[in-house]
Every structure is written in structure tokens, then in C-alpha cells.
């Protein structure tokens, strides 16, 4: 299948890609996608603290293809899939941001107060659910933890520095 990568969004350091075979150009997927570290969405409820810090993630496309045997459609929407929202980009490609159009990660009690569908509008929630869901299934099959579940398992976080004043 012909694929091309369309970089669809770089918002708040979160980079998402989607695949489509409708484009003219042919490109190979990048071996590694670098997700910039980002400070997670401050909870919008007033006074809620803290913001969650997540360091950068170098996602290895290559490893997930070759070692874990994933295919494009395991993670990406592809042509023919019945999506609830149509592309409005005019390119024929589906942009992640067109549906998952809310920035940041909703977390903690705030996440519990939203429905699963509502949470999917938040890009980081969608991506986290995708990654962690697959990691959980893989671990369940192996009857031990074989893929990262914890934040720090993927986010190569260096601690923030604090000054006590």
C-alpha cells in the first residue's frame, strides 16, 4: 500500500501524523518521531494544581513495525474507515487535529468527569489511550509488564528543578 506521511499538527509540542494513500507523493514513515516535551494542560478548574510535566518522547516507528509487528492501521485511521468527521483539509488526507482538536492531557478527577468520547477530542488523551491500551493488552497476553504503562516509561523526563524559597 502506498503511504505518505502528512504531518498534521504541531500544537503545544505534540506532533501527530496520519497516513493516507490518497496523496501523490510517496514517503517512508520516519524511523523515529520526536514528541517534544510539553507541560500538560493546566486543569481549567480554577486553582487546580499542578500542571503535569512530561518530557520528550522519541517514538520508534521502526521498532513498532519490525519488532512488534504493527501495521499502519493499528494506530492510524486509514482510507475506508468509517470516521465520524470528514476531512476538511481539501487534500484528501485526514488530519488528526480535525477531530482531536483539543490540546493537552485531561487528567485526574477532571478526566473522570468526562465521557470517553469527550476525552477523545483531546489529542494527548487520544494518543495516550492508543499507546497505553496496546501496551496493556500486550502485557496481559505476556502475563507480565512488557511495555511501558507509567508516564516515565516513555517520557524521558528529567526532573524539574525547584527552588524552595
Amino acid at each position: 500500500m502506498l503511504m505518505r506521511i502528512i504531518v498534521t499538527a504541531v500544537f503545544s509540542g505534540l506532533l501527530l501524523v496520519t497516513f493516507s494513500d490518497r496523496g501523490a507523493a510517496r514517503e517512508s514513515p520516519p524511523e523515529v518521531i520526536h514528541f517534544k516535551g510539553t507541560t500538560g494542560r493546566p486543569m481549567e478548574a480554577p486553582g487546580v494544581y499542578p500542571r503535569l510535566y512530561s518530557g520528550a518522547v522519541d517514538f520508534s516507528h521502526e521498532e513498532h513495525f519490525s519488532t512488534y509487528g504493527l501495521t499502519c492501521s493499528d494506530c492510524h485511521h486509514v482510507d475506508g474507515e468509517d470516521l465520524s468527521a470528514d476531512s476538511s483539509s481539501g487534500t484528501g488526507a485526514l488530519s488528526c487535529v480535525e477531530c482531536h482538536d483539543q490540546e493537552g492531557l485531561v487528567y485526574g478527577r477532571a478526566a473522570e468527569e468526562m465521557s470517553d468520547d469527550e476525552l477523545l477530542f483531546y489529542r494527548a488523551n487520544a494518543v495516550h489511550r492508543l499507546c497505553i491500551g496496546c501496551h496493556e493488552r500486550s502485557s496481559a497476553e505476556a502475563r507480565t509488564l512488557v511495555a511501558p504503562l507509567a508516564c516515565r516509561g516513555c517520557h524521558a523526563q528529567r526532573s524539574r528543578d525547584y527552588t524552595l524559597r
Partner: protein
Amino acid sequence: MKDRDRSSTDSQSGQSRRSFLRACGGVPLALATAAGPASKAAADTGREEIRRPEGSIRKISESAEEIYECKDSLGRFSGADMAFKKIPEELGAAFSRAFKENAISNVANSRIGHGVDVASPAEARAHLALDVAADTWNKIIGPYGENRDNEGLRSWLPLKVPEGMYTSPDPDPDPVDLAHKMKVIATYVGADRVGITHLNRKWVYSEKCLNSDSPEPPVTKKIVFRDVDQPAETESELIIPESVTNAIVFVTVQPRMSTEIGPATFQTMASTSAGYSWSGLTAVALAEAVRFMGYVAIPCMNETAMSVPLAIDAGLGQLGRLGYLITPWFGPHVRIAKVLTNMPLVHDSPIDFGVTEYCMECGICAVECPSGAISPDKERSYAPLKAAEPCGNPGARKWYINGKRCLKWWVESGAGCSRCTSVCPYTNLTLGSYLGDDPSPDGFWDAEFGQYGHREVIY
């Protein structure tokens, strides 16, 4: 006891922590004292400023039940709902096995934990050997205690005290004098702070889980109170005498430097293990002393009753956002153990030194937690997140942690984590920091002897 943090001096006043304590007339509130060398150099740009905890220790009349604003629906918690039981069920495998596999993998790959490399597998093995040593007494006593009620050295009946002694108390006991002497004995055999409280049965577990490390459905045994002279165990029950109405609660400080080499490494494991070993030994020894005085003594580490609310009732600290007890003397950098008894003892008062208000603002532990197990919400709640259930007993107002996330991270990293404890400002202000902003395991073996966390008892 000498000050552990010999190297800490206050950056502004040059005042040592110890001299500060003396200046305060011995009031052990170290919260406004030195932050240690690592913290005092921290005025660079790009750093987040966190307000320093400050305040004074105030005795209060409210019990933990009142502080938590407990609802009537709050029930006694079951050992079957502990995260250590739920993780095996979710993994479909024993927690201990999964954890050990990844720990061994760390050694083979020259790591001492998540993201912390060392020169060789042999070097990693030496760091794990440190934990093996620190954990030895803990293992012998019955590791950590969870769901190991009345097992091994933590038997509910005397180990060596002859029957003629443990059944013949002084006919005219003085609760004030006994309380003082038990605190001295507890300190003599290892405790760093001791408090005494009435035993609120809400904090006693409802049942022991007999197959805690198994992925199979829980098998349990009830923990009940009966009108009996001595504790007992039957096929279906663990029996605590009705007369057991007091708890001697104590904390033992963990070695500080090791928890800086984190977030989850063999070093952080060793610190925790050392805390458990010391607290377990102390509980067993103190229980024998109580029995020798003629009373029932039930030594506990994490089992039989919830340690944190008992420690709050005993005046040893307050509950922090991170789910641990925060003491004014050592922050949350402690392990708690207790002896339940029918010895008549005068009680200590709970204390307040502003932890709840401080934790509402701070939240460093939640930001730094590698697994997102600590609540990021400003306000406390009356129930854990649904994803955390059934771990966490609903009905008390507090910051519930997600124990399952926490423990899965331990498995994932192949090492026990201490990140929340290490980054807590109360830890840094009481015990200081030895290794600066970029802690490395390289210098561990050549540190000054006192930095390893040995108690420096004045003999």
C-alpha cells in the same frame, strides 16, 4: 541522637539545622531550617519556585477520623483490596515474580533501575547487593507485613517471654509512667519517634488476604475482636482481645542519600528496605517488652491496621498529598510500625503543622510521580478515582493515590520507587540533600560514612 544532616547549612543565615533546633528551645520543627547544599544553590533561572513549608507544631484535639471528616459509610478496609493483591490479579502473575524478572534484567543490562545506568553488570549487582543486605531483616521478620498478620517473628503471642510474666501485670499500673518507659524502650531498640494513641477500630483491617501474591481470587480470614485474654487464630478468624485498645506507634527514618538516586533504583529500594528492617525489628522487640510487663502485644508493620491514621492519632504527623504520613522531623522519609496492646497508656495528641494547606499549593509529588499515581487535584476527595478501585477506602476526605499505578511502575522499572518521598519539600527541609540536582550512583560508595543514614546514637 545527632543530626544526620551534618552538611546542611542554611544559605541565608549560615545556621546549622541542629543549632536552629536548639535556638527553638528543642522544638523539633525543622521546617524553616536548612534545605541542604543542593537546595541552597538553586537560584538559577528556569527553576520553579516553591514556597518553603513553615509554621509551628500545634497540638489539636481532632482525631484522624475527624481530620479526614470520615463518613458513616467508611468501613474497615480489607487486605484483599490492597494494591499488592490487585496487581497480581490484573497481571495474571505474581507481583514478586514480575518484579524480580525486571530487576534481574536491570542487572544484566548494567542498570540499577529505570534510566540509571552504571558501568557494568557487576556494578549493578553491587547496588542490588546493598538492597539485599538492607532487606535481610525485613525478609526474616516477614517482609513489609501486608497480609502477614500473626506470622513468624510477628507472632501475636510471646516469642521468648515466659507465661508467668506475660499474664501477670503490675496490679497498680501508672499509664503515664508506662507510656514514658515504652517510648524509651522503643527508641532504645530502633524507633526514631514514638507516639501513643487509642486504637480506633475503623483503622483495623477487616480481613487478611491469605493469597496476596497470587493472581487467583482472594482467600481471606476475618480480623475480629473477642472477649478473650490472649490473641488467637482459628481456621476462619484472627482474634484480637477486646481489651486491646491502645497502639504504640513509631517511625524509623530511611537513609536519605539513597532516595536521591532515583526515581526508582536499587538505591531507593535499599532505603525503603532499611526502613522496613529497622521498623520490623523494633516492633518485634518492643512487643516482647510489653509482654514482659504483663500485657498483650500485637506487633505490626503494615498489616492488621492502617499505619498512617494511627500515626496521625498518635501525634506523629499529618497525611500528605502523596499518601504518606508527613512528620515534622523527617518529612515523609520514614516507615511506620506499631504495637497494639492492652497496656494502660496515656495518649498523645494529634498535631497540625500546616501540611494539608501546604500540599494543596505544592503538588511537586504529583508532578514528579513517574506513574501519575498521585492526585493532581487541588482539593481532597472522598473516594479514589474509578481506575484505582478497589484500592483506597472511600469515605475519608483525602488525596487518594492510585496504588495500582504506583506498583505497576515498580514492576516496570524493576525497582521500588521513592520519588514522591524524595522530592517532598518536607524531606528536603528536614533531612537535606546530599547529591545536588543531578544525583548519580557513581559517588555512592565513597560518600562520608554518616551520609549513609546510620543512626548516630550517643552511647
